[in-house]
């Protein structure tokens, strides 16, 4: 290695240090600590039974854990899929010219800039029983009283949670897919049309395979967030059994601080489940990519 090459290498290392230190010290360290605590290592609480699998045992042994896990995954998956469908549709529409497009391009990004908490508050205002929507329906005479409006929030169907996630994440997916669409241009779609492909064939055989990288990365981010998010299911959810992040929060917030270890076991469980699902997702996608000849 020449002196010049060595200098370039050192400069490269220096550029990597900030992200590396965040990853290793803050994230990696916290991960190790969480794992240790979930296995009974918390001498500062006067608890040290390491290695102790009873926290995981009692958690995974209870039936409510599995219900919580199901709810967590259900909200996360349904909202991600809905946001994906809406976001892709919006991105495909935005790529074409239409009157008032500039306004649309500005408006659709608004939810990205509005915090989740505000979105949740908006959902409460609009969708709750006694909310604006129920009053409008009652005013229109479709129901006699706003109280008869079907329960949207605080049910285990999680319509409110899903609505907030979809509202917030549709523009995010639109943004990602739109950028990819701009990159690939319209020519392959036009070529397909001239070759005789109808709209459906063009989308599924030409457009979708090309925007897949954008779809995978954006849904990955949304899904990971939805699995771990706390405030929407806490405020808009159906109560016990809660989603896993809410369960963890309740443990952390309990007067009995020793329950923090149980909370850590919950957090680690969320991490394991999310990790397994995301890696499986990526693995399937990579296999597809290889089949398509991309590396």
């Amino acid at each position, binding site marked *: 290695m020449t002196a010049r090459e060595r200098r370039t290498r050192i400069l490269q290392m220096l550029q990597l240090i900030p992200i590396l230190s965040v990853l290793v010290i803050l994230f990696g360290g916290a991960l190790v600590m969480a794992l240790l605590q979930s296995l009974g290592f918390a001498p500062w609480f006067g608890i040290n039974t390491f290695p102790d699998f009873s926290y995981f045992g009692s958690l995974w042994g209870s039936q409510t854990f599995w219900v919580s896990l199901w709810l967590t995954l259900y909200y996360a998956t349904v909202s991600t899929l809905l946001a994906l469908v809406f976001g892709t549709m919006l991105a495909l529409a935005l790529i074409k010219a239409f009157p008032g497009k500039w306004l649309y391009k500005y408006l659709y990004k608004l939810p990205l800039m509005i915090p989740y908490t505000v979105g949740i508050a908006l959902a409460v205002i609009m969708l709750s029983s006694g909310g604006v929507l129920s009053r409008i329906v009652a005013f229109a005479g479709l129901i006699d009283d706003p109280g008869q409006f079907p329960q949207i929030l605080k049910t285990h169907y999680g319509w409110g949670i899903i609505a907030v996630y979809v509202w917030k994440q549709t523009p995010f997916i639109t943004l990602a897919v739109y950028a990819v669409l701009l990159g690939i241009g319209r020519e*392959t779609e036009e*070529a397909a*049309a*001239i*070759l005789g*492909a109808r709209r459906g064939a063009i989308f599924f055989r030409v457009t979708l395979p090309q925007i897949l990288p954008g779809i995978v990365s954006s849904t990955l981010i949304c899904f990971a967030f939805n699995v771990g998010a706390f405030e929407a299911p806490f405020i808009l959810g159906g109560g016990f059994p809660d989603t896993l992040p809410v369960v963890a929060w309740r443990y952390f917030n309990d007067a009995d601080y020793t329950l923090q270890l149980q909370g850590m076991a919950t957090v680690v469980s969320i991490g394991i489940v999310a990790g397994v699902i995301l890696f499986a997702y990526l693995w399937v996608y990579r296999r597809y990519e290889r089949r*398509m*000849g991309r590396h």
Partner: protein
Amino acid sequence: MTQVRLNSVRKQFGNFVAIENLDLDICSGELVALLGPSGCGKTTTLRMISGLERPSNGAILFDGKDVSEQAVQDRNVGMVFQRFALFPHMTVEKNVAFGPSVRGESKAEIARRLDEILEVVQLTQFRTRFPAQLSGGQMQRVAVARTLITKPSILMMDEPLANLDTKLRVEMRRFIRDLQQQFGITTIFVTHDQVEAMELADRVAVIFDGQLAQYDTPERIYRYPRSLDVADFMGATNIYSGKLLSRNRVRTALGDIDCPHQNDRSAGDAVQVLLRAEALDMNIGPFKSAGSGLRGRIMARDFFGASVTYRVACNEQEIDVTENARRMLDVGDDVQLEIAPEQVWLLSG
């Protein structure tokens, strides 16, 4: 074999008029170039013929049938895009088989035609490659094969030689010519390069600012441009204003020149005189008597390998002379220029 006719076609995007009342007749089996500077509307014209754009006014007829309202998918045309627009996620054979596959052809039929067409474009050994693994020339051949396999009635190409290097251009030009002859398919291509248009086309439609400036054979457009703009675009450099002395002699700043007999002009008419650089003969002496030919001195020399272009000062005017590079004259040499009257072309003006 399809005949194409554009009947006062007009295309407007918002307030911008891309094409203004264009009439164009393309014979069955003909190879036509739409030539013009970028932004002149030639690509828009091609896209309207293909069905990717709808004309704002006027009609497009295939074999006398109005197809203006017909969807792209139903026109049975083929288009080779400038950047080929291959599907990057499909192998060569998947790309080529795409057309017949979406048209619902049987697997056996697709396989048979695929083998046949890959043989024609000499890509059989590359059939499992992806577009990213091909050279520019190979990608273009895939694009051509992908189009031809659908047996289009009209083949369209957007700047077919623009993305290729010099050696490939020659090869591709022959390839396109041969294919066109072999399949006898009506072919329309767009280019901004007059050399490309002349190399390939049976007829060239020169388009300026959305209007047809001239539609003729390459030779006639080159030798007998109808306007100064066309002459300029075809690369003419020696254009001088002059006045007719008689019906076959014209006075210019260079000197008096014999020209072909002008039936519809008379002595005293103002004209523009076009002298093609390669039509001028350059003598290095001993000079003939005064009165025949133009005396001048070489000011500059550009060497192009096969040809040389000299810039000659002549009566305080400059004139370009191109000749074969069999001899080389030097800057400062005195020369005498002659041009046969039939090589002189006069434009009004």
